[in-house]
């Protein structure tokens, strides 16, 4: 690597470290970092404790765990590679606009820039691997093997994706590029046939078919490069680890070499991709989605509904969802539909407490972090809302309508999925769950937005080791969960009291319980209105 680039890399790493230390210098940064540390400690303690830890009774012994890794890890990595092929553009080496302005115009060879970028990536991946090593379950193997395996695998994933997408760019406009979609269609058809076969066959599930493919001679040939990385994770001795690590390093070096060669042929495309990715990141920083539409023009909708001032706000968020988050909605709805069949296949029905906890985390933590169609994505546009002649409560309600309805659709999908696949979920239970899901969703997003307006902060982490951001995300989630559980407890208590008073039927207690939850949801909306009024753009936005 060029000495100047090496120095830049060191300076940037040092700058990142300094930024983290500065975070610790503030009380808030220190508290959130401590919270993050506490959660990590909890994960370590859960993993190291004997018997059922965080992973409950579903934990496997080392041999079974190793078999699972050897079977499914290569398949997952192949799936990831195919996904990179299907996506028209993939994660090549991304240079930020300031890197392009300073480095591309500097006296550096292109290959030096690629190596510099690769070096930065390896530094980041080393940190991620250290984190994986800390939280990895004990049956995974020694700390050294987990670290080496994670590091080399993550580097491989990045290089593999880069080479695949660069090959795609290099082949653009050639005859081979035309083969891409028919091949994808063929593979899709094979996958569909396999799913239908697994569905129809009473004694074979989709995982059985995947396992059979993995252990067939064809599967072994197709998956050879990926199997190397699975072997790294299950290596039982230092000599085994060294052997597989050496092969993995050779594969990664070959891929890096291929990336450098391919990059020379795709410089123009690479620049365009960099600009596109930079725009996306800028959009994400302002609350947008990575998958937002990249079209320049769309057919305008002529009029917005008024609905007493609530209409235009909800309409704006509906357009935002349609053009910014449509793919996210589709992905999450698909995931929601798969929850019941997957949990059933893994032997943990949706009524199991552990599965319920996962569903809650999916619905109340992962979904809100990705689907942003409310105030959280509009902090940079608060000036507009503040100057509108619309009452604050209408603005707040308008902001929540679309987000709550979309999340509710995903909740309904989970319920429908459970109704179809889970025998213990009857139609009455599903209807009751559907009725309670709406006020619960309102409550979750009203709390989420209130907290966000009271303590506004960036939506994306500043790099891998932004412990303050991670700590804050976890603290927010815990606070929100306490509030939501308290509201559910209050709602349940009202239902119980009503049942004691009225006696036989569950309809009236259920209604009283639902009404209480709905009322708490609307009361939280009042808190949101207070937070909106209190939000002073120049004083609080970061």
């Amino acid at each position, binding site marked *: 690597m060029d000495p100047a680039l090496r120095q830049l890399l060191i300076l940037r790493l040092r700058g990142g470290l300094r930024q983290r230390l500065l975070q610790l210098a503030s009380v808030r940064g220190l508290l959130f970092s401590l919270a993050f540390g506490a959660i990590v400690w909890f994960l370590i303690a859960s993993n190291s404790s004997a018997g059922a830890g965080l992973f409950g009774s579903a934990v496997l012994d080392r041999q079974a765990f190793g078999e699972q890794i050897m079977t499914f890890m290569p398949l997952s990595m192949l799936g990831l590679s195919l996904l990179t092929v299907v996506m028209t553009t993939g994660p090549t080496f991304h240079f930020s606009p300031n890197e392009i302005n300073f480095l591309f115009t500097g006296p550096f060879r292109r290959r030096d820039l690629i190596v510099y970028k690769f070096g930065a990536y390896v530094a980041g991946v080393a940190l991620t691997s250290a984190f994986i090593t800390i939280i990895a379950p004990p049956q995974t193997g020694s700390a050294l093997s987990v670290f080496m395996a994670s590091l080399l695998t993550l580097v491989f994933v990045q290089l593999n994706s880069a080479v695949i997408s660069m090959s795609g760019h290099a082949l653009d406009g050639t005859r081979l590029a035309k083969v891409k979609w028919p091949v994808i269609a063929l593979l899709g058809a094979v996958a569909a046939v396999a799913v239908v076969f697994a569905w129809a066959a009473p004694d074979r599930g989709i995982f059985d078919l995947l396992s059979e493919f993995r252990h067939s001679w064809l599967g072994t040939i197709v998956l050879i490069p990926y199997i190397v990385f699975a072997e790294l994770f299950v290596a039982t001795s230092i000599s085994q680890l060294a052997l597989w690590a050496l092969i993995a390093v050779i594969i990664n070096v070959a891929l890096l070499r291929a990336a450098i060669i391919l990059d020379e042929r795709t410089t123009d495309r690479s620049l365009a991709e960099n600009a596109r990715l930079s*725009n996306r990141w800028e959009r994400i920083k302002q609350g947008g989605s990575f998958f*937002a539409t990249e079209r320049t023009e769309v057919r305008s909708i002529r009029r917005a509904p008024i609905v007493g001032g609530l209409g235009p706000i909800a309409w704006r968020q509906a357009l935002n969802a349609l053009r910014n988050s449509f793919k996210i909605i589709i992905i999450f709805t698909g995931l929601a539909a798969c929850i019941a069949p997957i949990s059933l296949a893994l032997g943990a029905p949706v009524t199991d407490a552990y599965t319920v906890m996962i569903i809650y985390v999916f619905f109340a933590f992962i979904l809100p972090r990705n689907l942003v169609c409310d105030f959280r994505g509009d902090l940079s546009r608060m000036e507009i809302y503040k100057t509108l002649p619309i009452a604050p409560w209408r603005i707040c309600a308008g902001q929540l309508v679309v987000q709550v309805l979309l999340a509710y659709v995903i909740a309904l999908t989970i319920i429908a999925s459970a109704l179809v696949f889970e025998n213990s979920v009857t139609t009455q239970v599903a209807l009751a769950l559907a009725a309670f899901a709406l006020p619960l969703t309102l409550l979750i997003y009203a709390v989420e937005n209130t907290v966000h307006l009271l303590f506004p902060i960036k939506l994306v982490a500043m790099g891998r080791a932004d412990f303050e951001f991670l700590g804050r995300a976890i603290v927010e989630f815990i606070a929100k969960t306490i509030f939501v559980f308290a509201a559910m407890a209050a709602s349940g208590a009202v239902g119980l009291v009503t049942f004691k008073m009225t006696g036989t039927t569950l309809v009236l207690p259920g209604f009283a319980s639902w009404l209480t939850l709905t009322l708490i949801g609307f009361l939280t909306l009042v808190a949101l209105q207070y937070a909106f009024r209190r939000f002073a753009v*120049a004083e609080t936005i970061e």
Partner: protein
Amino acid sequence: MIKVTNFSKQYKGFTAVKKLSFSVEPGQILGLLGPNGAGKTTTLRTLCGIIPPSSGSLLVAGHNVVEEPIAAKRNLGYIPDDPRLFDTMTVWEHLAFMAAAYRLADFEKDAEALLTSFELTHKRDTLVHNLSRGMRQKVAIACAFLHDPKVILFDEPLTGLDPQGIRGIQQAIRERAQAGAAIIISSHLLSLFENLCTHIMVLNLGECRRFGTMEDLLSEVGHSDSTSALEEVYFSITQAQEQTSETAAA
């Protein structure tokens, strides 16, 4: 139309604006002049309800911005220095959004006229994040003009505009004032004040240092060229303040 009395704004112990009083009548264009941190943007943001005042009274078209915010905002149009538009909406949809927010039943004709006057007709279906900064500025101004406000506040209105755009915006501001709107412009461009403003207020460190008509200022300094006069007034006030601060520190 705009009446500000004893307005002060404090941020955590720092006084951004101190006991400011002025008024702007229909047809008048007031230019706010002052160095960075003088309190110009704070004054505009408070007038349009983005931030609350610490004390004092601010009336827009006879409505107090704190007690009757909705009524005040109905009569107000604000164009910030860096317009943050909704990146998933087209130019036309911004106008449709503003029409619904201000409850305008028939806005299409006025919206078309605004698109034509700001040369945005061919961009009506463009998503705004694909527009240049100058274009986005024009969209923000069109949105602010749509409900025909009686009070218009501009914060650095010419940033990012090409010469043609500058001429167009200046013309639009003049026409709005002639139609009876009270206008405040905050800018560092002295030539803009020379071309447009009927009144000038010089702010420094949150306080009003000079307030009067353009003619008053010209006669006071004795210049025939208004830009030179403004420049002289500006530097005499800000430099005098710096000297006072240095003396106090010594």
